[in-house]
């Protein structure tokens, strides 16, 4: 057993359960309940990392989320987790962690040479050092900076862990289970409120775990256990540990990350790694406590220098000594509590108190325990490189400017206490402007902007008695606003030691002739000299000083450094801290893993997947699918060794020669019903709708108010007051919202209802010269002749016992019909079509063949109606009524829209009849013209014409109508191609439209 720094019979870790783990490849032992930090300290390990800039040795500074030093990388299930705080991560059997920001090892780190080159790394060095010559930037400076930056390496592999999201509502959310959190939760819960109590650490109790107090005749720990047990037993209370509320957003929406299995050896099958809670709280009580402030002196970043509260917690919670020869350096009474705890465990500390002659209960107690105390004493500098070996200490003058009697004393750790900083981050995020409290030299929340209150030490209340009383009151008050139950519980009596005022002194002056680095920001290596330099260089605003020096910009967000930085700026500027102000606190309070933010919305779960009722048939028949919005559509049906090109050519050719069938379920379908439906459509579409007879379909184009084409499709009059509208797959949702907008807000007098029926109908488009023959067999009792069911006709019929709707409409330009049946019958319909169609050489065709067919015909689709085109551009001007008004009509009069040389739809054929033109190519007159080459337009869609067996494209080009016959060039700089082309009509196949009417 090599845990030399482990105390016997002290602490809360489970001594029954020994756990082994690896740090930098070496095996260590700890106990269940240890963090990596406490277990390593128990083993006497204090060197865990290297600092960001100078690569100075780094140890442990704190004991929780404020930790600026001990950032490690965790390897787990072959995954890497960077940015793990050793003070937060609990150990489990088989855990492997390693140091970051050092090479080749934490003990021998080449980068430490930066420490000797520190004159080259002043504040803002990256604005100064890497400037010249400019050509060095890409090849030398940037790679160098990238190599040096960051803590650890994120895995580039897919994260196999599961993360979940949860939405929760409550009357009262309490963030932190210290004395104020517990008291207010208890008071509110007893008053009937639905309460969520969130604790970031594994153990509840906050400062009660380590302070020597008495509440209602119980120790702090006992009282915590009692309250937590009672809260857990109440149905209206949710108590969560390992859960950090990290963000406070609008309308009392708070986000919390719960670490569910981060502390467990391996992922349980049904247990997520983390869960992100979105909590909408009626009221919030912020009880996030306070963080001890460091004192600033020479080499105060040496491993072994740490917060005195951390040293105490390592002893009381983990049973671990951070050192055996401790030096306590304090400007307030908190340091004494740590000293007393050392003494109780048989270790003799020395207290250096910056105050000259303070007196309080706790100082008296320390004196009675014969602890050596030196008043008006400071640490000048820590000595030792990888661990504190001794300290230069000195007596300080009353004005705190002169140092006397500098001497060196031996010590193995320096526990510092510079008083306490309330954690106002959440309150500040909620919009609460903070105010400066002179008495505690720190900011506290001011007036609430949202429904929040801050309680306990987060609000600058540092005595337990006041905290408990205030928290009981607030818990009752805010809950009673909601429950009105008036059930008030009595406040327990509190016994605590009274403390006296702290000393405002926090930064030890440099002794003459010494230039020790005195650090403010321990993670980003920002020293006192850096702030001084920034101010000398003219930076004044604290926001600028922060960005120039990077003070408080590390992953710990300056939890320990912010106030000292502000203090320094105000000292130099001869201002007071409130004049300087503080930088903005932004979420997240602590780092949150990207996995937790994304939750389950990864891979194919990143969006919903919609499948048609015929999907399984397509799968069985070798369909290769393509994403069409959220739909999966067959792109082509693979036969043998075919690729996309061969298969789509075969399918399209078969439509032109025989008959094909395409799944068109994904088209948007909207039922438009009501006595004013015709009038409504007449206003929505550009063409006339009032005279469409029942049983007929019509193609329509709708515009936005700005005159741009929004969508197109056919709408069929099913009965007098019932229309069946179709939209493109992509625009279905937008068109519905558009229609609802006009019906609900603009023309509420119209008696019309719209509802989406996309999912109610399965659709199959049957296209090709054989389609009528196929239809005759599918509907033997129906007259499907050209007279009985003409182009744009509509019929209802029976398909082998299933009710079906037949629309004679065509996207392919061939004789075509669209059959719709109720979704549940879609598969049946499809199989019947394939079965009956066999004798007519039917083949299914996918979206690629569909595109080919429509491009050849010059039918426009999404690539032409791209949100930039008006009807004229897409050659749809024939559908624009001159007589009636409609949505967007007035915009078509705008001068740019009436200009004669507008871009217009044309066809494009390569002169060599073999080279395909990449979509997106520019059409230009002269391929050798000086750049930027004046562009006539662009190629919107390309295909291989199956009719003429050569490439064919659609393009939208300037003055298109008059360009037909011209020889131009299609240029694709992206594909490095220049193709001579001829401009032709966009109606490449069957320009008279005979086939659809045949």
């Amino acid at each position, binding site marked *: 057993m090599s845990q030399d720094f482990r105390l016997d019979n002290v602490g809360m870790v489970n001594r029954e359960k020994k756990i082994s783990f690896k740090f930098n490849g070496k095996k260590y032992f700890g106990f269940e309940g240890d963090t990596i930090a406490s277990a390593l300290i128990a083993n006497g390990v204090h060197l865990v990392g290297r600092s960001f800039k100078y690569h100075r040795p780094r140890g442990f500074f704190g004991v929780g989320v404020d930790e600026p030093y001990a950032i490690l990388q965790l390897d787990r299930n072959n995954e890497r987790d960077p940015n793990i705080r050793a003070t937060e991560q609990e150990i489990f059997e088989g855990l492997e962690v390693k140091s970051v920001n050092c090479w080749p090892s934490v003990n021998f780190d080449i980068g430490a040479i930066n420490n000797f080159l520190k004159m080259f790394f002043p504040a803002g060095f990256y604005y100064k050092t890497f400037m010249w010559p400019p050509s060095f930037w890409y090849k030398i400076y940037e790679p160098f900076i990238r190599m040096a930056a960051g803590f650890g390496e994120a895995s580039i592999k897919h994260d196999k862990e599961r993360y979940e999201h949860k*939405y929760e509502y409550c009357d009262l959310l309490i963030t932190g289970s210290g004395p104020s959190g517990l008291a207010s939760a208890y008071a509110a819960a007893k008053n009937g409120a639905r309460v969520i109590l969130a604790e970031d650490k594994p153990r509840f109790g906050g400062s009660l775990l380590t302070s020597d107090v008495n509440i209602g005749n119980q120790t702090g720990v006992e009282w915590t256990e009692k309250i937590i047990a009672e809260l857990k037993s109440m149905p209206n209370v949710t108590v969560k540990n390992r859960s950090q509320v990290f963000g406070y957003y609008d309308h009392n929406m708070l986000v919390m990350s719960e670490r569910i299995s981060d502390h467990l050896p391996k992922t349980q099958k049904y247990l997520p790694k983390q869960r992100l809670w979105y909590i909408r709280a009626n009221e919030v009580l912020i009880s996030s406590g306070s963080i001890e402030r460091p004192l600033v002196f020479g080499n105060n970043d040496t491993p072994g220098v740490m917060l005195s509260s951390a040293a105490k917690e390592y002893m009381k919670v983990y049973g671990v000594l951070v050192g055996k020869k401790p030096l306590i350096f304090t400007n307030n009474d908190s340091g004494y509590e740590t000293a007393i705890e050392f003494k109780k465990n048989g270790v003799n500390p020395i207290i250096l108190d910056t105050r000259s002659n303070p007196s309080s209960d706790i100082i008296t107690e320390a004196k009675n325990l014969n602890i050596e105390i030196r008043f008006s004493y400071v640490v000048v500098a820590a000595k030792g490189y990888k661990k504190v070996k001794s300290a230069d200490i000195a007596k300080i003058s009353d004005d705190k400017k002169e140092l006397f009697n500098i001497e060196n004393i031996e010590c193995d750790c320096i526990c510092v206490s510079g008083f306490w900083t309330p954690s106002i981050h959440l309150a500040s995020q909620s919009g609460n402007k903070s105010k400066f409290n002179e008495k505690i030299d720190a900011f506290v929340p001011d007036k609430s902007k949202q429904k929040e209150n801050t309680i306990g030490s987060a609000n600058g209340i540092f005595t337990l008695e006041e905290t408990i009383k205030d928290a009981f009151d607030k818990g009752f008050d805010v809950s009673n606003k909601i429950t009105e139950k008036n059930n008030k519980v009595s406040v327990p009596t509190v016994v605590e030691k009274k403390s006296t005022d702290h000393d405002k002194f926090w930064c030890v002056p440099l002794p003459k002739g010494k230039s020790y680095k005195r650090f403010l920001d321990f993670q980003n290596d920002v020293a006192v000299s850096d702030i001084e330099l920034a101010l000398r260089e003219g930076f004044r605003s604290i926001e600028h000083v922060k960005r120039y020096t990077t003070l408080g910009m590390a992953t710990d967000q300056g939890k320990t450094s912010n106030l000292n930085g502000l203090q320094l700026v105000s000292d130099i500027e001869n201002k007071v801290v409130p004049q300087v102000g503080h930088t903005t606190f932004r979420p997240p309070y602590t780092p949150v893993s990207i996995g937790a933010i994304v939750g389950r919305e990864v891979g194919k779960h990143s969006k919903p997947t919609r499948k048609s009722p015929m999907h399984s048939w397509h799968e069985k028949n070798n369909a290769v699918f393509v994403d069409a919005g959220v739909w999966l559509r067959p792109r082509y049906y693979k036969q043998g060794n075919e690729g996309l090109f061969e298969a789509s050519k075969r399918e399209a050719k078969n439509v032109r020669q025989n008959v094909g069938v395409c799944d068109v379920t994904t088209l948007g379908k909207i039922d438009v019903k009501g006595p004013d439906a015709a009038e409504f459509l007449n206003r929505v579409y550009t063409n006339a709708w009032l005279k469409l007879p029942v049983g007929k379909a019509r193609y329509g184009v709708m515009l936005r108010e700005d005159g741009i084409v929004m969508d197109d499709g056919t709408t069929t009059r099913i009965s007098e007051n019932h229309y069946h509208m179709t939209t493109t797959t992509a625009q279905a949702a937008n068109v519905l919202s558009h229609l*609802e907008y006009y019906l609900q807000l603009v023309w509420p007098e119209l008696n019309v209802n719209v509802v989406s029926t996309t999912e109610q109908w399965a659709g199959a488009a049957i296209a090709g010269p054989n389609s009528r023959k196929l239809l005759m067999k599918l509907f033997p009792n129906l007259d499907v002749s050209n007279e009985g069911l003409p182009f744009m006709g509509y019929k209802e019929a029976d398909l082998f016992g299933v009710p079906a709707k037949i629309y004679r409409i065509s996207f392919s330009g061939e004789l075509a019909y669209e059959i719709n049946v109720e979704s549940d019958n879609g598969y049946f319909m499809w199989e019947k079509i394939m079965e009956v169609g066999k004798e007519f050489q039917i083949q299914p065709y996918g979206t690629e063949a569909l595109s080919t067919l429509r491009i050849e015909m010059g039918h426009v689709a999404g690539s032409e109606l791209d949100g930039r085109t008006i009807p004229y551009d897409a050659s749809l001007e024939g559908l624009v009524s001159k007589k009636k008004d409609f949505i967007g009509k007035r915009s078509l009069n705008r001068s740019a829209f009436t200009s004669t040389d507008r871009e217009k739809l044309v066809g494009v054929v390569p002169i060599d009849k073999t080279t395909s033109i990449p979509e997106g190519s520019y059409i230009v007159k002269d391929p050798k013209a000086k750049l930027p080459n004046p562009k006539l337009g662009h190629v919107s869609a390309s295909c291989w014409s199956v009719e003429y067996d050569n490439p064919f494209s659609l393009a939208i080009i300037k003055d298109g109508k008059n360009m037909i016959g011209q020889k131009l060039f299609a240029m694709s700089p992206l594909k490095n191609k220049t193709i001579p082309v001829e401009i032709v009509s966009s109606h490449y196949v069957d320009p008279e439209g005979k086939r659809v009417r045949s």
Partner: protein
Amino acid sequence: MLYINCPHCGLRSQNEFAYGGDATVKRPELNKEISDQEWDNFVYLRKSPRGKHLELWHHISGCRQWIKVERDTSTHEIFKTYKANEAIE
């Protein structure tokens, strides 16, 4: 995330809604002769006030009703919500 009181459904989170812009814009009547300026103002010109703003929201993942929301654009405070055809106070 805003908490919007849909007058049809009650309090719902913002992610059920789609934003619809300024609710005070009135579409010119059909077939009415208006100047280019008037039409451009309707199509393009929007105020972007700091403070109270009456705006449209579409309860797209709920009742699919367009509603009017009086919101402070700087604090996000929502004062009142109205049905599409309700008179504004």
